[in-house]
């Protein structure tokens, strides 16, 4: 019996109830819950690495009638990442939210968001996925609106409405699938789906819903305001995890469930949109006035890179080369997750200590907040894709795949994107290193600065020198829903 599969979902849910019931202990309950979640996720990943994908038929009903939970290399990897990021950002939040009542508001929602993300990563049922998407959407919106600043609330409301539209598009696809194939279970569908109108239209609806949620250019317009106005720890998770959740589903559908349905043309479409996202996002990030806005736009760009993989994966024959590219895609997603959350947390520190996050007025930051500026630099290295960082190995494979498949078109895009990234990262550092007298910074304490630093180190050192582990762990059974004994 694989009830272990329920823990990464149910632990945060249970602790969110506890945090709701004991608001005065919310922070300690929350941290405890996230630690437990991390342990559970690690255990799950360990089991998957050891004995392959896992399956749990909830309620003991055969999948189809009941709902099944799946864990394979891809889902457990993302599970692990989200647990780590959530723990780090959560720890930071205890310093970010000074008011006890703010923490009491924050923690239950935060844990609900984790519940939602993990439920999505593990779910094996189309309609259940819709519910998890809605849970992600609502808890994320509620978190983004915390603090109740007008801009934040406005962004959150638009974010909510667009999120709902995305979910509805997804749900429409689900309805069509159920009408045509009479089941909602991914495992069964994967063997039933055929390239025919019903599947095409249903997939198109679901994919467009997910694209809206993963903010692929030109559907990105909602992301910068929402991510730039939310409280720092929330922005971190929005950028690092929430968009990744939609992307995860995209991958799962594209490469696994709907493998026979998708077309090369569609892959090229996604790739081109990704290319535009890289250029546009990087450019806007370079022009950004505020640090948080820069970070948000760089997310738009970084997501673009991930979509560049789709046409490449479509062109590569199934085999070692394709697995390598897939591993690179996942490695890039992981590195970006860690680096971007580190960037947002560091931004939060600067914003609170300097009282603003206007890039051109960061003078003296390097002297006042050396650790945080160092974190910015490390995260920046990972975002640019310079060694040592997981992104470097990932981009290497991206270039290589583009060359191998003769899709030269992407090479200048990646190169330009990287140079623009370098430009905006060193723009920050340039101002931060500039010596400015009379600038006042408040002292930051460890629980504010360290989480970001740790995340940045994970992105650069761990994933930079340990990148092979990602390939070894992920690629063999990356997409193995339904290949469970």
């Amino acid at each position, binding site marked *: 019996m694989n009830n272990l599969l329920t823990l990464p979902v149910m632990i945060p849910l249970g602790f969110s109830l506890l945090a709701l019931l004991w608001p005065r202990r919310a922070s300690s309950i929350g941290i405890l819950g996230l630690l437990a979640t991390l342990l559970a996720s690690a255990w799950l990943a360990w089991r998957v690495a050891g004995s392959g994908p896992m399956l749990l038929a*909830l309620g003991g009903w055969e999948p189809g009638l009941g709902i099944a939970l799946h864990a394979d290399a891809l889902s457990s990897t993302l599970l692990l990442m989200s647990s780590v990021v959530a723990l780090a950002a959560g720890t930071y939040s205890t310093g970010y939210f000074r008011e006890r*009542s703010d923490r009491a508001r924050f923690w239950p929602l935060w844990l609900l968001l984790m519940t939602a993300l993990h439920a999505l990563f593990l779910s094996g049922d189309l309609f259940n996925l819709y519910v998890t998407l809605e849970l992600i959407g609502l808890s994320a919106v509620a978190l983004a609106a915390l603090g109740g600043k007008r801009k934040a609330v406005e962004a959150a409301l638009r974010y909510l409405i667009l999120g709902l539209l995305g979910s509805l598009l997804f749900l429409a696809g689900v309805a069509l699938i159920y009408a045509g194939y009479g089941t909602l279970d991914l495992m069964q569908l994967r063997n039933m789906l055929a390239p025919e109108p019903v599947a095409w*239209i249903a997939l*198109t609806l679901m994919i467009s819903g997910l694209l809206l949620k993963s903010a692929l250019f030109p559907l990105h317009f909602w992301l910068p305001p929402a991510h730039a106005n939310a409280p720092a720890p929330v922005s971190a998770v929005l950028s690092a995890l929430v968009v990744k959740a939609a992307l995860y589903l995209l991958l799962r559908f594209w490469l696994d469930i709907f493998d026979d349905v998708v077309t090369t043309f569609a892959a090229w479409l996604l790739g081109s949109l990704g290319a535009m996202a890289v250029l546009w996002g990087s450019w806007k990030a370079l022009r950004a006035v505020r640090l948080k806005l820069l970070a948000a736009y760089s997310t738009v760009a970084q997501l673009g890179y991930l979509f560049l993989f789709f046409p490449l994966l479509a062109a590569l024959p199934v085999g070692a080369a394709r697995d390598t590219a897939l591993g690179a895609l996942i490695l890039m997603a992981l590195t970006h997750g860690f680096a971007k959350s580190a960037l947002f947390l560091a931004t939060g520190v600067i914003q609170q200590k300097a009282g603003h996050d206007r890039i051109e007025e960061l003078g003296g930051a390097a002297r006042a907040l050396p650790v945080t500026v160092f974190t910015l630099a490390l995260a920046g290295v990972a975002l640019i894709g310079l060694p040592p960082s997981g992104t470097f190995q990932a981009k290497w494979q991206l270039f290589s795949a583009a060359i191998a498949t003769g899709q030269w078109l992407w090479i200048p895009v990646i190169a330009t994107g990287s140079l623009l990234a370098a430009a905006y990262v060193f723009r920050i550092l340039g101002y931060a290193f500039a010596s400015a007298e009379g600038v006042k910074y408040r002292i930051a304490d460890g629980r504010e600065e360290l989480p970001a630093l740790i995340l940045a180190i994970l992105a650069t050192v761990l994933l930079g020198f340990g990148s092979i582990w990602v390939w070894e762990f992920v690629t063999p059974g990356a997409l193995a829903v339904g290949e469970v004994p």
Partner: protein
Amino acid sequence: MEITLWHLLDSLLAILLLGLAWSALSGTDLKRGVVLFMAFGLLLSLIWARLRAPDLALAEAAIGAGLSGALLLLALRDREKSENKAGQPMSLLRLATVLLMLLLAASFALAYVTAVTSNTGGRLAGLAFGNLEQSGVSNPVTAVLLNFRAYDTLLELAVLLAATLGILALGSERRPFRRPGVLLGALVTWISPLLVIVAGYLLWTGAHAPGGAFQAGALLAAAIVMLRLGGMTSEQLPHQLLQGWLLAGGIAAFMLAGYLATFHDLAFLQYPAGWAGLLILLIESAAMLSIALSLGLAYLGGSPSGWDERSSRGKRS
């Protein structure tokens, strides 16, 4: 297949529904839009009944039309700057959006028709009815909701909780209504207990007949709405700590029941043989209260007085 009177009625209902929706959405007068939307909801619940979905008819009437309507009407009090602008783009663009809309609808319809015509089997119905005995209840919908797909329902309660917490986090409740006239006052005092009784009945009957936690919870929430209209202040709600427990109750019951099974070396949410009926009733009762309170607080529009003191009060409690 022959065209029967039913089909004419169906087409009539469908056209009526579309008309209502269109006029609810296209007008710039929001009050009118909201009222039309409530009418739309009622018509929809009629259609649910026609399509032999009585559980949905109840839920739609209580939640879809009733509570959403109440919330929307209340929301009309908050003026929007953007409202006064006629929210329509210039005609050419407008035409384009209409065409796109039709294209979307057409492609959906195309897929739908092919799907329904090609797949005339019972889909999951057979499985569901086949396992109804083991499910512990005789109302198939309840069986799906609380047994076959209980996990959906669990997460759905989490969605409701997330929304409620979000609302509570946004600020304090709306100002309560001033005491109404005698007539409404009397009405409230008569109706709300009635709603409570009906809710209890719906919950109980949900096991074998249409009804269940959601409909019942919605009715309880309706009772709160009535009382609120009758000038109830949030002091008259249960104590804040009790509110917390009520909100958490539904999910908590679900999780406990779910893990209870795992001790018997069963799968999560797999009810031990013979316990299903009882467990489902317990879960539903807790869920009903959670739903009722959540929706009630949503109607209050914010955290009730004293909600935040929970976190800053001294060691006691």
